[in-house]
């Protein structure tokens, strides 16, 4: 029984890596994840990931921000302490537009980014779960769960044929824990 936990295919070129994903999928090898130093469009669809729903979250937060400040302005200037400014109405909607807009933007930005961090488990001090240290530099890494997969040599061969510059058989899942 091999001690290999994960097989990593390291590519130097994003197009060859995409080719590698295709080859693995043609051979029915399940892919655990792909790590790249920059966003590569199209991998998410190849791996069958759903589109991000952060846009909906952003919209909700925006609505929340706009209605919060508008309600606050209404309460403060119309309900709690209406002022007579030249006999003009206290409920001066046009004057509330700038602040409503600003808080819509503010809540959208902070709410969406917080949701992104929460969903992706990003927070200050989180131990980085890195499978290969060069994946944030110049290597495009396809990670394959070794357990219960087809013979490891076959996977190595598929990756090499697709143009991988290096194939690693790792005993540990993450290399970044000290």
């Amino acid at each position: 029984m091999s001690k290999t936990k994960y097989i990593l295919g390291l590519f130097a070129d994003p197009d060859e890596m995409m080719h590698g994903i295709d080859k693995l999928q043609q051979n029915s090898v399940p892919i655990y994840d792909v790590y790249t130093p920059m966003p590569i469009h199209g991998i998410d669809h190849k791996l069958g990931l759903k589109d991000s729903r952060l846009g909906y979250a952003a919209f909700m937060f925006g609505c929340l921000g706009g209605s919060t400040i508008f309600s606050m302005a209404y309460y403060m200037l119309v309900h709690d302490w209406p002022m007579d400014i030249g006999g003009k109405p206290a409920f001066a909607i046009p004057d509330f537009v700038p602040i409503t807009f600003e808080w819509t933007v503010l809540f959208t930005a902070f709410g969406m980014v917080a949701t992104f961090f929460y969903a992706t488990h990003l927070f200050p001090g989180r131990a980085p779960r890195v499978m290969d240290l060069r994946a944030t530099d110049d290597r495009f890494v396809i990670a394959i769960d070794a357990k219960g997969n087809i013979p490891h040599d076959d996977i190595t061969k598929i990756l090499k044929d697709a143009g991988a510059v290096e194939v690693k058989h790792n005993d540990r899942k993450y290399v970044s824990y000290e």
Partner: protein
Amino acid sequence: MSSHSESIIREPLITGKDITYAQITNDVLRPVENMPGRAWWIGFVVACLGACLWLFAVSWTFWYGIGSWGLNKTVGWAWDITGFVWWVGIGHAGTLISAILLLFRQNWRNSINRSAEAMTIFAVICAASYIVCHMGRPWMFIYSLPLPNQYGSLWVNFNSPLIWDVFAISTYFSVSLVFWYTGLLPDLATIRDRATGLRRRIYSIFSFGWTGSVKTWQRFETVCLILAGISTPLVLSVHTIVSMDFATSLEPGWHTTIFPPYFVAGAIFSGFAMVQTLLLITRKVLGLENYITMFHIEAMNKIILLTGSIVGVAYITEFFIAYYSGGEYERYTFLNRFIGPYWWAGCMMYGCNVLMTQLMWFKKIRTNIPISWVLSIVVNIGMWFERFVIIVTSLHRDFIPSSWAMFYPTWVDVSIFIGSIGLFFTLFLLFIRVLPSIAMAEVKLILKSSSEQAKKKLIEHEQLNDEQVEYYKESLTKFDSIEAVG
């Protein structure tokens, strides 16, 4: 997407012969991973002295009150609000580059957006410090927030543009910071994975555990796109609201409907000038000529020319409307800019902003680095004088001649202004020392499509229109980072 090849007639955005992904990381991180050179230290010491001067002058203001400034009964706003508007305006270019140019898919923004956005944040810090200073008693800032208090509660007046400004500037600063930091995460992870020991631990904390997995990148791109989408109207709203601080008053010279678009154009104008001032030095000192190329410099000069011309049209419109309005006070105010005691400030404003930038029509000037640098400083000076003219020249002769006065700055006014520049440069120099000054992940994105070597490969391997290839080779002659054109 990465294999998509771009039309040959587009100029390269990355020059240099053997630029690989690893090379980009090495080049960008050189100043972060090594001790800084002599140029950085000299700059840093000078900037720190400026920041100390700022600290001293601001403390002096807080101790003795704003009576230590040169303000008087007639001129109640002078260098403080001039400095505030100037700094906020400078900040605008960063958001324009990072948000608006992203929405327009302008790939050349990729190598300048990081430092431009850092500049935005530091400029807004300087601007906000002016607002707090001019309150005299800074703890009174709390009353500009809609918080319950012991007076009733006496709420803030949401009908006032000054309160809109509090909301606009604070939103602008915090959203810019979030946008900038989210974009930094992948690059911080790159530094982390290359570092060892304590440095690794520090960057590990700040990189939030970024790994670069597929789902992370997918969400990251969604977040960046939406942030760009909301930052675009935000940045326009900020200077619009700043202009309303003036435009909603009844002061001749301020009470004009052209102010919002005029201020926004002026803000982008001065901001790009500051980006140019900083980047022309940075690319040289940090050796980033291959990433911030002549194409970038020329493109920014074109934006300076465009926005400078818009500002020029706004000036002419103001004069025409002052004449056409038939209003006696309105006419006098605008005439006073030329024939009044502040005629020299008006000349600086019109000369630096309109006349000097028209030189940018000439390609030789747009692509000349020393001249571009000098012109960018000229624009910054001109834009400072624009705010000075709008504020002080409009105020100093109001409706009653008996209250006419002049404004003379004290050493505190001057020190806060010079000091704020020192503070800005201190922060900027620290930034290029500890954080990557170029967004590495974004530059890597365009390596295969828009680099000089990709274009060369295209010429060698593809059937291309000879005329277009000639045109492309011709365009390379202006680049200072390309030696011989083959």
